[in-house]
């Protein structure tokens, strides 16, 4: 479903340039749970951002379900993210001074869903990640694990085809990490493709395939049959 061919990413110009991704070739099938691992600065986030169309490759092609993503305009990429993708960011990246419910409602606003249905769906999403009684709290009133759950609810409320998660358990302890991963695993079981960056083996263990990146290149891939 997702295919990267010879994708490279170069930052800067001429001598000052640095190649962050080098000729990446990668295919991800529908319903897969892929974990991307590698040392810090190896280009994991950069790769994920390109897959999430937040960033564009310097060269190479990106195809999604036979559609050339590389050829899309800025506006079309916005629509692609709106209808197809869900994001969980490295930091939680929730809107400050905005209630959990309103944070989760936001993707639905852009989908043009009416207020009443929007509130209901956002509320349901928050319940499904175990945040009943916390829907009116603002991010500053929530713990790290709770904030991450809000971020997950926000990513899933629009019922995306692909979930893109950059270190979803990055700032959490082991117990909380497993709770979050259980939730994400649940989504994958419903048929949603998951692409996740992590540097923890226990977290990567939830994936069906682990891709190791080093110095902007795919070092090796390991598939697990679950």
């Amino acid at each position, binding site marked *: 479903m997702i295919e990267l061919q010879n994708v490279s990413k170069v930052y800067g110009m001429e001598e000052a340039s640095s190649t962050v991704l080098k000729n990446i070739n990668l295919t991800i099938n529908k319903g897969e749970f892929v974990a991307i691992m590698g040392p810090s600065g190896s280009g994991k986030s950069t790769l994920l951002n390109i897959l*999430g169309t937040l*960033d564009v490759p310097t060269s190479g092609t990106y195809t999604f379900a036979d559609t050339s993503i590389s050829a899309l305009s800025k506006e079309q990429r*916005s629509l692609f*993210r709106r209808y197809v993708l869900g*994001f969980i*960011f490295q930091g939680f990246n929730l*809107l400050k001074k905005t209630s959990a419910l309103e944070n989760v409602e*936001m*993707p639905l606003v852009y989908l043009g869903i009416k207020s009443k249905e929007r509130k209901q769906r956002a509320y349901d999403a928050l319940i499904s990640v175990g945040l009943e009684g916390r829907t009116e709290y603002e991010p500053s009133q929530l713990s790290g694990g709770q904030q991450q759950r809000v971020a997950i609810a926000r990513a899933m409320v629009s019922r995306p085809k692909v979930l893109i998660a950059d270190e979803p358990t990055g700032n959490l302890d082991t117990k909380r990490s497993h709770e979050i991963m259980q939730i994400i695993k649940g989504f994958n079981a419903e048929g949603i493709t998951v692409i996740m960056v992590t540097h923890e083996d226990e977290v990567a263990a939830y994936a069906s395939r682990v891709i190791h990146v080093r110095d902007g290149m795919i070092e090796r891939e390991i598939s697990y049959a679950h």
Partner: protein
Amino acid sequence: MLINALLQALREIRRNLMRSMLTAIGIVIGIASVIAMVNIGKGASQSITQSISKLGSTTLYITPGQQRGPGNQSAVSIPFKLKDVAVLKDSLFALRAISAVEGSTMTALYQDQNYQTSVKGVDNDYFIAQNLEFKSGREFTKNELRTGLGSCIIGQTVLDKLFLDGESPIGKKIRVEKFSCEVIGVLSPKGANTFGMDQDDIILVPLKMFLRRISGNDNIHLIMASVKENIPLEEATLQIQQLIRERRHLKPDEEDNFSVRSMSALLDTIGKITSMLTTMLGAVAAISLVVGGIGIMNIMLVSVTERTREIGIRMAIGAMPQDILIQFLIEAVVLSGLGGIIGVILGISITYLVSVTMDIALIIDPSITVIALVFSMLIGIVFGIIPARKASNMNPIDALRYE
């Protein structure tokens, strides 16, 4: 989508309430001054127009000499004679009433009371030309006018000053410096005129008596002529000018050495002055609106920078550049629009206060209210577009990474 953006904008403004209010203050002041100035200007000119038309807008004022401008009287100023008035009266069909007016300030006495007032020698036509009515008594008789007999008509102020115990003045003799006269009538009060002069502070005597006892000659310095309703003022003016020129044997290339003016000419002048003032003050207000707009732009730019991460999150979640553009644009418009609404309320309050304290007609022009509101929102669009474009042009990844 638009409703959501509107709610979002209101939420954002409430979140930074203090800052929003300070930002909008420029717009508030600008709009309030536009509203107040235009409304007060209109009220004032309406009040002036009304009191001038009360003076009789069909009355022409004929004076010797040519007024070329303030303090620029022409050298030759030959007064009119009684004969001139008689000829004008007999020859001009266009006139409804015509009266020479000679006046002087003098002290009037009655028993122990004395009071300084304006004494005027007039004919009965003066009452027509000046729209004067009688509270009691009568106008002059033919005999009184012809012989210049000692009778007089007084205004309310003179009545109050001389006749203290409320007795009827009719038939009483008062003394006015060199002559004494019997009060035959009291005028209905008219109050102050446009220029603040008390129109009831007056004693009217037959013109002939005034000329004989006070002037000592028959020089006349003012003739009031009231033009018939159906005859244009310009037409009557022309007739009067021709007649006087003939009587004065002026050659075609000589200028008039007298002038014929109407209150409506004065009205035009006042109208021009007030509209000029309104325009000027309006321009000042417009400048303050532009300054207010720049204030909004400044704060919106700060806000866009502060909310870079939010913009990144929204874009990642699927907001298109135009969604972001509209969000920030609406925020600017709501900010300036709210400023406009507060400004309108403030402006109307100021108008009300001024009209009450200064006794000016209260006019609230609905069109300027609507224009001001639309304009304030326009300012939001004009000055909001740059910050909004800046926000919508961001790259999602750069915006997300922004610290």
